[in-house]
């Protein structure tokens, strides 16, 4: 019951770009330990394009379409894995499996809580937290 690796990578990329503003795919690959091919694959999908744009050419690079304060963690998770939170702790609903209504209710409550927490954290918040972390900043320099 985990975030997909592509979602984890997308979060890393959005966070990195919210800090450095613009970066080449080579820089993203080196700093975030994601292969250039994978970054290319992510960028060719429409999901990440909702948040990241690219400028072609020698001086080009990748940058965020929106202000980091306007992108929350849940936005990226939902874009990369639409409706996945609705399956959290439940899985695919199979009518043959007698899932207790009270268990479903308990899962729905938890799903709502996860949604609230991930919606309340913006990339600006994460960016600020990162600025306080010396080690993280060292990784960027």
């Amino acid at each position: 019951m985990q975030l997909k690796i592509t979602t984890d990578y997308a979060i890393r990329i959005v966070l990195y770009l919210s800090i450095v503003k613009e970066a080449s795919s080579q820089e993203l690959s080196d700093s975030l330990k994601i292969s250039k091919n994978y970054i290319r694959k992510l960028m060719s999908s429409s999901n990440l394009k909702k948040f990241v744009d690219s400028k072609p050419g020698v001086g080009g690079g990748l940058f965020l379409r929106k202000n980091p304060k306007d992108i929350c963690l849940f936005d990226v998770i939902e874009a990369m894995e639409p409706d996945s939170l609705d399956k959290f702790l439940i899985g695919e609903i199979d009518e043959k499996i007698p899932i207790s209504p009270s268990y479903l209710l308990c899962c729905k409550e938890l799903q709502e809580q996860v949604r609230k927490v991930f919606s309340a954290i913006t990339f600006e918040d994460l960016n600020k937290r990162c600025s306080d972390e010396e080690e993280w900043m060292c990784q960027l320099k």
Partner: protein
Amino acid sequence: MSIKMKKETHYAIGVLMLLGEHGKMTSHELADDLGIEPPYILRILKKLKDHGIVETVQGVQGGIQLIKKPEEVTILTVIDVMGTNVKINRCLEEDHYCSRDATGYCQVHKVYEQMQKTIEERLNLYTIKDLIQKNKGE
């Protein structure tokens, strides 16, 4: 979040709710009530027995019964016993694997950790008794 909640976990919760509500039941009765094959229910019961949640009572009046009270069996326990992984991201697993080797300082990891703690605390609060009562509208 790609969720692979095991079917077995749903059935195990069903088994425990039935036993919590009706007391002793045979494996055939449990299988009938849940609409599954007896060999499948035995596999689920073995895991629950191995973890000291249910036991078999031998004899004519025998059957399967709870060892613990329904209020002592939490949903988190059942999920753990059935081997479902509830970690919301790979970096939260025991080996803390991260391709950047950044779990020590990564801020997103810290958010995941906090979220994970909340989820597990909640799942540890809900018990089989709560589920039975909620189903009855209590």
